[in-house]
């Protein structure tokens, strides 16, 4: 463990940022202000923060529908993230993407994907660009246990291993794909057991312990930068909330027993990290509280910012389709008529 106090505190700050951000999203959703689906990351903060702490700003990440934690962990601006979720013009994507599609290319966040596993080949391609163009960055992709069964993962891992690409496949195994349990979805005990099928290391790590995730990722990043190729990391974690906001149809305890949920919630990644800060860096309760308070204020400010941000103008509907506009690209039918 070679994280100094400042780093440990920054990790805690980001974990809190995700937690409070998600709490705010839940509140906003219940008020009816947010109509689209949103998938809370609460309970899994240690994975994104542990992983992203091992990365440089120039490194690239890509993610999935459970999509707020990854960009925040990579340093994304919570104001613009919240504005995006509310569909506002100051959002990361000017309101065009929303909750499932946060992206900030300027700091290496290549975007979250609503289609499960669909960003895995994209991240593999980013790693290919790094290798071909000798660009030196690594690529890291977050995907779920459910996603691991998609062909896209298989194809990407084979290519990455064949070509020694600088990529980390970070599987967030929270035990479920919506309501489908790991046992009914993956035919082996661990997703990381599949790494040997590609000839890459498969690392199983405690996903509630940000430091453990950081350690595993750091070694994978070292390998990647040294040209030694990809690593598959499986972080065992748990989603504390429902699969998605607004999916009220599913009875909560029908697919996860209350005991299981209670047991899992005892291992809150924020508490675990707070304790680790005290042990390893002698942070005080006061220091920890202060981080929490600062972040709470930050999130409140983000909500305020997002609420005040204007909705996009109607004309914006037709912007952002083409990078190279040319004659006769389609325009509004009503303009035409």
């Amino acid at each position, binding site marked *: 463990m070679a994280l100094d106090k400042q780093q440990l505190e920054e990790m805690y700050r980001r974990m809190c940022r995700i937690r409070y951000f998600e709490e705010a999203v839940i509140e906003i959703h219940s008020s009816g202000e*947010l*109509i*689209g*689906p949103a998938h809370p990351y609460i309970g899994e903060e240690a994975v994104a923060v542990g992983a992203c702490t091992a990365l440089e700003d120039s490194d690239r990440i890509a993610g999935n529908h459970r999509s707020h934690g990854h960009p925040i962990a990579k340093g994304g601006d919570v104001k613009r993230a919240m504005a995006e979720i509310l*569909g*506002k013009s100051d959002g990361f*994507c000017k*309101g*065009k*993407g*929303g*909750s*499932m*599609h946060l992206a900030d290319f300027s700091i290496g966040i290549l975007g979250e*994907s*609503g*289609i*499960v*596993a*669909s960003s895995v080949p994209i991240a593999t391609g980013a790693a290919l660009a790094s290798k071909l163009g000798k660009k030196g960055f690594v690529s890291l992709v977050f995907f779920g246990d*459910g*996603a691991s*069964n*998609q*062909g*896209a993962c298989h194809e990407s891992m084979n290519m990455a291993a064949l070509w020694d690409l600088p990529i980390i496949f970070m599987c967030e195994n929270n035990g479920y*794909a*919506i*309501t*489908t349990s790991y046992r*009914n*979805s*993956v035919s082996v005990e661990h997703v990381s057991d599949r790494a040997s099928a590609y000839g890459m290391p498969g690392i199983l790590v405690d996903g509630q312990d940000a430091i453990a995730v950081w350690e595993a990722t750091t070694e994978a990043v070292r390998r990647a930068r040294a040209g030694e190729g990809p690593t598959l990391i499986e972080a065992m974690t748990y989603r504390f909330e429902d699969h998605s906001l607004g*999916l009220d*149809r*599913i*009875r909560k305890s*029908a*697919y996860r027993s209350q005991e299981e949920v209670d047991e899992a919630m005892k291992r809150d990644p924020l508490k675990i990290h707070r304790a680790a800060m005290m042990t390893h860096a002698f942070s005080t309760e006061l220091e920890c509280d202060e981080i929490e308070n600062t972040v709470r204020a930050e999130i409140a400010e983000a909500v305020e910012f997002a609420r005040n941000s204007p*909705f*996009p103008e*109607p004309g*914006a*509907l*037709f912007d952002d*389709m083409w990078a190279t506009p040319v004659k006769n690209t*389609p*325009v*509004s*039918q*009503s303009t035409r*008529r």
Partner: protein
Amino acid sequence: MPVKTYIQAIAEATIEEMERDESVFTMGEDLRQSVYGATAGLLERFGEDRVIDTPLSENGFFGAALGASLCGMRPIVETVTSFLWVGMDQLISQASKMRYMFGGQAELPVTFRIRMFYARGAAAHHSDRNYPIFMNTPGQKIICPTNAYDAKGLMKTAVRDNDVCLLFEDGIAISSRTEVPDNKDLPGGELLVPFGVANTVRAGSDVTVVGIAGGVQHALDAAKLLEPEGISLEVIDPRTLVPLDMETILKSVERTGRLVVVDPAHKMCSAASEIAATVAQDGFWSLQAPIQVVASEQVNVPYSPALEPLIYPTPEKVVAAVRAVLN
């Protein structure tokens, strides 16, 4: 007559067909917990072997459904338009080609139930309306029920059909309620709606308005808006896009001389364009005005509630198109 929601109708059709025929089973993601609403209670009723939760592998399990159908089973698969892309190879290379390629040996009695999300901030990744794509690739029947009655009757026909049926459930219609007769009150004891027969939802004399999927609702709303002005719309719901009942549409245009097609899918190469093109060929001499297509704007579906509604057809846009053909 009892009033039911679209989803209730689908659920009833599923249960009736599963009870009638042991080879019918359902497969898809999270069916047992019924994430999309239509499979609630099936597990308790029919057991694990007939209500199969699949891994997240659309290409794999679409193909598995097709393979099972080749061997005497009749799967009902539940999914969402946007997940079809993932399983496209099985849907096109196998589902739509296998029978013809093998000289008629294959029977593929699979029904895909495909949800289309609508105007609820689902954003580009979850907002596809891709039925026109399957119209372009021959080999599947394409069914777009727009109310609970048709949903039940067409679904039951689909399950009994020996070809691959893609049944698109439009989010625009999904929470609508319609009268659906009880089986005991029906002559044959059950509700079956045939494929290839359009439904003239509303008779009228001035303009023929064909509604595709959720577009039927917009057309009906427009008809109501125009009624006070004495403008009478004939609203036609083709119900199935393959087979497509052009005859009913052409006959209507013969009388009205005017055609508007409303389609919530993207405009280019849409079902609406296809119908317009066919009328411009086979019904040309009936036409007294340009054909108007009201479809989604040719951009991706945006997330923001300030933008999303602008992309879709609305009753107001239909009204504008009707006025255009009347001038």
